[in-house]
């Protein structure tokens, strides 16, 4: 894997995540009690032996930088290679105002060019999965492919827009790519994750840039389905693509299935994240906790059911939390009752309040809110 480098594109659309992304990029959205979305992609790369990762920053990257710092938690604080934060061009410099990764890739062309590896893995930051990328890379080499697209089979497409589906022949060669089709027969959904040679990447970026195109995949790769050897590699395992509030809630709750918990966090290496040195969780007498994920630094005296508590949440006596996600340092007054609620970081809820959302539409309380 010494011959593969990673490029994480933070330009994923945050439409549909509402308050959760009002001040942070999608990759920085907290998930699973102690992680941020980008942790999964970063860790998958590092676990596969990738030692050179470029991160294409877009707007609202403050919280993300605070999280990844110098990449130490992923062993990416290296003398050679390591983590590179790729700053986007300032507006006006390129004439682009619409988002898209081409201006950003073009702006950071020197990074791509100078990377010592011959192959690149380009991906977004919103996939919750533990993927063995080594296998995908081997597949790419074996097939002598120009581009290998990583996909996952799912039969609940209607729940997952926006998505890109592919159809493959018996050898795994991609024969059709469709963006947000109303009907899809293949059930093969791309994870916005693909491998190609560095030379091809540079060519495609230049080609798109010089023709005022803005998206590497849609404008660079898709139109060349017939003349490039594009293959599909299937990741068989759990995948959660977070692209809306509903999918955020759904995939968060799926972490409460022991099978998913086991696979995601232990299958092909660990998922690393920023360390906070919080104390172990204290369960006081009278606590009733079932089917929940609890992060360190929490203290629990009340009732917690089917929920995810991030670090440093205090659940006092009489507090009842059901089917909810409470991010870091939520402060709850006595007797607070929450159901189907997502509390962003540092939310304060005064005593006796009852908040209820709907399983299909959880109530989101924004960061630092005081109720």
């Amino acid at each position, binding site marked *: 894997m010494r011959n593969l480098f990673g490029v994480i594109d933070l330009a994923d659309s945050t439409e549909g995540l509402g308050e959760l992304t009002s001040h942070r990029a999608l990759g920085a959205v907290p998930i699973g009690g102690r992680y941020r979305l980008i942790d999964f992609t970063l860790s998958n790369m590092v676990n596969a032996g990738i030692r050179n990762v470029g991160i294409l920053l877009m707007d609202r990257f403050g919280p993300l930088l605070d999280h990844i710092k110098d990449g130490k938690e992923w062993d990416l604080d290296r003398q050679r290679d390591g983590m590179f934060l790729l700053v986007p061009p300032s507006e006006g410099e390129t004439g682009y105002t619409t988002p898209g990764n081409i201006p950003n890739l073009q702006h950071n062309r020197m990074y791509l060019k100078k990377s010592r590896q011959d192959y690149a893995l380009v991906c977004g930051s919103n996939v919750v999965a533990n993927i063995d990328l080594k296998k995908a890379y081997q597949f790419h080499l074996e097939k002598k492919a120009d581009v290998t697209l990583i996909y996952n089979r799912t039969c609940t497409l209607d729940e997952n827009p926006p998505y890109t589906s592919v159809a493959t022949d018996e050898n795994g060669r991609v024969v059709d790519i469709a963006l947000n089709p109303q009907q899809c027969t293949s059930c093969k959904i791309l994870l916005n994750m693909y491998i190609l040679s560095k030379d091809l990447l540079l060519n495609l970026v230049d080609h798109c840039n010089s023709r005022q195109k803005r998206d590497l995949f849609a404008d660079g790769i898709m139109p060349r389905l017939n003349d490039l050897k594009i293959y599909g590699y299937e990741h068989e395992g759990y995948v959660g693509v977070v692209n809306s509030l509903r999918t955020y809630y759904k995939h968060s709750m799926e972490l409460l299935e022991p099978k998913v*918990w086991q696979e995601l966090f232990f299958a092909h290496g660990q998922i690393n994240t920023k360390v906070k040195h919080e104390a172990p969780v204290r*369960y*006081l007498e009278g606590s009733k*906790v079932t089917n929940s*994920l609890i*992060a360190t630094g929490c203290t629990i005296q009340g009732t917690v059911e089917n929920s995810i508590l991030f670090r440093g949440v205090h659940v006092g006596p009489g507090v009842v939390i059901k089917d909810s996600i409470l991010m870091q340092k939520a402060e709850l007054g006595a007797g607070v009752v929450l159901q189907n609620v997502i509390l962003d970081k540092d939310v304060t809820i005064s005593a006796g309040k009852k908040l209820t959302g709907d399983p299909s539409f959880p109530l989101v309380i924004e960061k630092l809110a005081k109720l």
Partner: protein
Amino acid sequence: MQKKEVVAMLLAGGQGSRLGILTKKLAKPAVPFGGKYRIIDFTLSNCANSGIDTVGVLTQYQPLTLNSYIGIGNPWDLDRHSGGVSVLPPYVKEHGGEWYKGTANAVYQNLDYISRYDPEYVLILSGDHIYKMDYSKMIDFHRRKGAKVTIAVIPVPWEETHRFGVMEVDDDNKIVEFQEKPKIAKSNLASMGVYVFNWKDLKKYLEADEADSKSSNDFGKNVIPAVLNDGEPIYAFPFEGYWKDVGTVDSLWEANMDLLKAEPDLKLNDSRWKIFSLNHSLPPQFVGPGSDVQGSLLADGSLVLGKVHHSVVFTGASVAEGAEVIDSILMPGVKVGKNAIVRKAIVAENTVIQEGAQIGVPARPGEKVEIINEAGITVIEDNVTVPAGMRIVQGTVLSVAEWPKFPEERIS
């Protein structure tokens, strides 16, 4: 080398033989404590929180776990260009080498290390106590009093004074008399094994101690009495707060249980005085459907599907459906199988307790057992498998070799 005001020397080479099987393969400071820590984390975190950035860790007994744990000291902000942490094992010199003969000799053999930083003060610490202490206050006190040596002291119950070095002090906290483990104590102020020396004095006394062939080269037994005999001013720095020597199975168990009180004397989740440790990237703990967790402490990566009452469950440990863990300590990676029972036990790292096994249960009427632990604490060693259905009577076994014959006699 940049001059440092304070260099800390942390004595971490002790075997901790009274911890029995728990320190068979690792030094006492490396013994897991409090759900996610190792004992040495408390002293190292005290250094970090007190602004001390130059720490020599003296190792000797079974250092592998300890060495790899400390690494370059990153969790305690001791990965520095100037100073930082240095692990100091005994080494061979031009005219041969020798093991550390005692606490004073261990520091004596590393005088060169301290000289590199030419400090004003040297702080002598031990790596086997659980406490939170601001050493910078003690150094201020030492400076203010113009002391040659300052010893941190804590009041202990009179009936326990025979286990400690105790100090008799005057109104100004100046030490008038020092008694090492006295039969009849004149004071109940016990030494915590934390000393501040002026560097020049320390060097002088350690060289003199080394030259004395009759000395057992120990700070408490030899060096402190020597300073006192010379009529030099030694002061006692009174410490208030939780402090526990976890050198025995009983005290290790008790200190863990102390953390489970509704209002523990030692708060682990104090953002102003964090206890730093080497964190493994493990997911948040999962407490499953039908589980029952009360009065307990659980760490990252643990998985509970059964009952856990009044217990400490370490990183990556798991308790299966129907299993019952009460008044116990499950160290990192311990797996308790379905319907197994663990009562008042310390189960060391990565041990597997199979389905239906019973640990720490009372003896049956007429059953002959050899009680090893009077307090009834059962200790199971690390990396072993307790077979399904095996029954281990409370306070009896320590190591596999002493386990009851299985399965003929004890299967329930």
